[in-house]
């Protein structure tokens, strides 16, 4: 692969992460807050499964850290959660990416839920309140939107010849 193709791949991947980060802070009414999918997690899982040699644990950590700063959360909280998600996605990519998107969605739910579990643990340790079921709705909504995210990102990957 020549240098410009590599740069293009990196730029396209970075751009999708930037869009996901923006979507994660776009204001919505308070009641809709709990239905916001984990955009960053979804994009991360896609790239980890499609191009595991390009996006992995290191990039996940970096994106997670940016999310921490955007959210004003404890530095490292989302970095840890995204690292775990990336680990699972890279580890399972050969098994998950052969099945159709709606089946992949189940695996995505599990990965995101494990990631959220770490966020909850951190919050519990530093004494922030841990809420009930509504805390898990983002993962479930993410599962529902996964097939669409998958198709959109696959198109982006093919058009931009990201590899």
């Amino acid at each position, binding site marked *: 692969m020549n240098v410009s193709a590599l740069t293009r791949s990196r730029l396209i991947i970075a751009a999708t992460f930037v869009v996901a*980060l923006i979507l994660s802070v776009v*204001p919505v009414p308070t009641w809709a807050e709990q239905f916001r999918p984990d955009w960053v997690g979804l994009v991360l899982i896609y790239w980890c499964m499609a191009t595991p040699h390009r996006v992995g644990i290191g990039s996940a950590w970096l994106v997670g*850290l940016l999310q921490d700063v955007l959210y004003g959360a404890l*530095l*490292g909280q989302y970095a840890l959660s995204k690292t775990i998600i990336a680990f699972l996605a890279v580890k399972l990519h050969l098994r998950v990416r052969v099945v159709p998107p709606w089946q992949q969605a189940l695996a995505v739910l599990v990965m995101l839920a494990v990631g959220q579990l770490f966020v909850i643990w951190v919050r519990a340790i530093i004494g922030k309140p841990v809420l009930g079921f509504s805390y898990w709705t983002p993962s479930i909504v993410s599962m529902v939107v996964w097939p669409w995210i998958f198709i959109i990102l696959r198109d982006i990957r093919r058009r931009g010849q990201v590899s």
Partner: protein
Amino acid sequence: MIGADSRPIRTSTLLLRLLAFAVLAVSLMVVDHQGQHLRQIRSALSVLTYPLVTIAAIPARVGGWMSEAFTSEEKLRQRYLALEEQHRILQARLQQYEALEVENRRLRSLLGSATRVADRAVVAELIEVSTEPFTRTIVINKGSSDNVFLGQPVLDAYGIVGQVTEVSPQLSRVTLITDPGHAIPVQVTRTGLRTVLYGTGDDDTVDLPFLTASAKIKKGDLLTSSGMGGRFPPRYPVARVTEVINDPNEAFLQIKATPLAKLQHHKEVLLVWPGKTEPKPVESP
């Protein structure tokens, strides 16, 4: 989807990388939780995220602009008249206020007690972005370049909103009094009873958890900041008591209050630089 790359990723290296980055994340969290050592890192990273925040706030801004642009002239006229009337009433009250302030200062100097210098305030605009789910914070468009400082009190026209908990060059983050991790020392204006008011995470409820049945407090009482702890300036309205339940099985009263600041609706807030208290003159015995 066919594998784009033929190189297999070995599980051992993957685990090693996971471990390394997890340890890095955990140590960051520990240091960040311990104190303010990471303020510079956060501030530097927030320069990177500043454009993202600005872009994310565009839809809300356009929405506000649209609704302003399409307000009918009739409505605007009505609003203008209402504001003018309100302005006249406030102006009339202000005349009294100034006279009272002079009188108050004279009385205080007669008593030999400290006089307070008026607080300075600057209007900051809200940047409408979401923050971490289940916390109550807002982002405002003033930062360290406008001399905003950590722990600075923030008000609106009706009462105390919260305090600045994170400062970067162009933005700062304000933790609201309704945030579950926030507490503010208050005083019941009717009886002078001092206590601490906690956020619950709910937008229109705050808690007063540690008052016993003998406490002189009832429904409708106004709670103002007491100035204890030195973070919030004293005598600003905070909340009004809505419910006092005396359950004999509980050690403490269950007291709920509603914040007076319009926490959900504001577009602008006031940053306050509290006036310094002039030291009390030493009296000879």
